């Protein structure tokens, strides 16, 4: 008997029970097992292992399920608040940019007027005004995105603490 046949038998043993096997394959396997004691012994061990493993009863306690549900809810709340905060930041940022853009023209004129009266170079004043307009909004938005809001953190920690208290009871 070739190695290929043993390998085929082992694969069919492993697949039998969890997959639909062709009748032809099953018949071939039964014939092989009838003549190969090594594969037959493995098939028996395999079935016995499955039988014993399936007999193991493990159940999750209701308190574990309840604690998990509370924790998932607290996390969902936190994620929702974080998402809302990011939306608000994005809206604020956009409003800031729009406001700056609409008033930019006036600032530009003002810059030209300053440059003319103080005798400064136009090439220096105009980029300076642009940076002056945009930089604060970018910096604030960046800081708010980087550092989480302490008030939201406190609420999340309080929700976790109440969840633990609920689980201990």
């Amino acid at each position, binding site marked *: 008997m070739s190695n290929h046949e043993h390998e085929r038998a082992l694969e069919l043993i492993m697949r039998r029970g969890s997959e639909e096997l062709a009748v032809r394959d099953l018949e071939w396997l039964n014939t092989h097992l009838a003549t190969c004691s090594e594969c037959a012994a493995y098939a028996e061990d395999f079935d016995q292992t499955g039988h014993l*493993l399936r007999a193991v009863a493990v159940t999750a306690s209701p308190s574990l399920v309840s604690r998990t*549900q509370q924790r998932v809810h607290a996390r969902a709340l936190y994620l929702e608040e974080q998402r809302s905060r990011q939306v608000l930041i994005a809206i604020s940022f956009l409003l800031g940019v729009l406001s700056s853009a609409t008033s930019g023209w006036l600032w530009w004129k003002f810059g030209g007027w300053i440059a003319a009266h103080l005798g400064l170079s136009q090439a220096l004043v105009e980029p300076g005004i642009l940076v002056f307009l945009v930089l604060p909004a970018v910096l604030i938005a960046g800081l708010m995105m980087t550092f989480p809001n302490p008030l939201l953190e406190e609420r999340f920690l309080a929700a976790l603490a109440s969840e633990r208290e609920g689980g201990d009871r």
Partner: protein
Amino acid sequence: MIATAFSLLVPMETEEAQIARGLRRRDPDLLDALIEQYQHRLLRYLLHLTGNHAVAEDLFQEVWVRVLEKGHLYDGRNRFVTWLMSIAHNVAIDYLRKRNPASLDEMQDPEDGAPFEPPASGPSPFEQVAQRQQQERFDEALQNVPALFREVLVLRFQEQMKLEEIAKLIHIPVATVKTRLYRGVQALRPLLEGGAR
């Protein structure tokens, strides 16, 4: 008749597709229902993988938090249970890496090695005791099987997964699944020869 024709043209949404849609919305009712539906299977998998009840319960919670966070990645094309178990597998691996980067086998705790309840069945008290003893020996032997093999045994026999599903879940080739399954059964052979026959 029109309704029938319409239902033939528009396929019904599968359960997996409904779950995927609910997870994208982070629907709390759906998550509660999923936790209840898969509680025993998930805990059993984690328990077999870690061999420690307390750790398995911690990881159980962590898995569901991760399901919430990564829910938008589930596309509903595969069975939900396969995706859930792959999350559980990753959570267990992360836990192991934090605790001990050397080996998955280190997850088992010999002091807490037999946390399973034997099944309450058998026609006579004598047979019940014999079954209980055999089951206890099996649980003990199972905890001595390397976790890599144990995981594949659990997925194949308890979750009734196909070899391809197991391979996809734990990101290994099908040939490796077969090798681990073979060696897992071989590792339990002394017990099977001594007790069960």
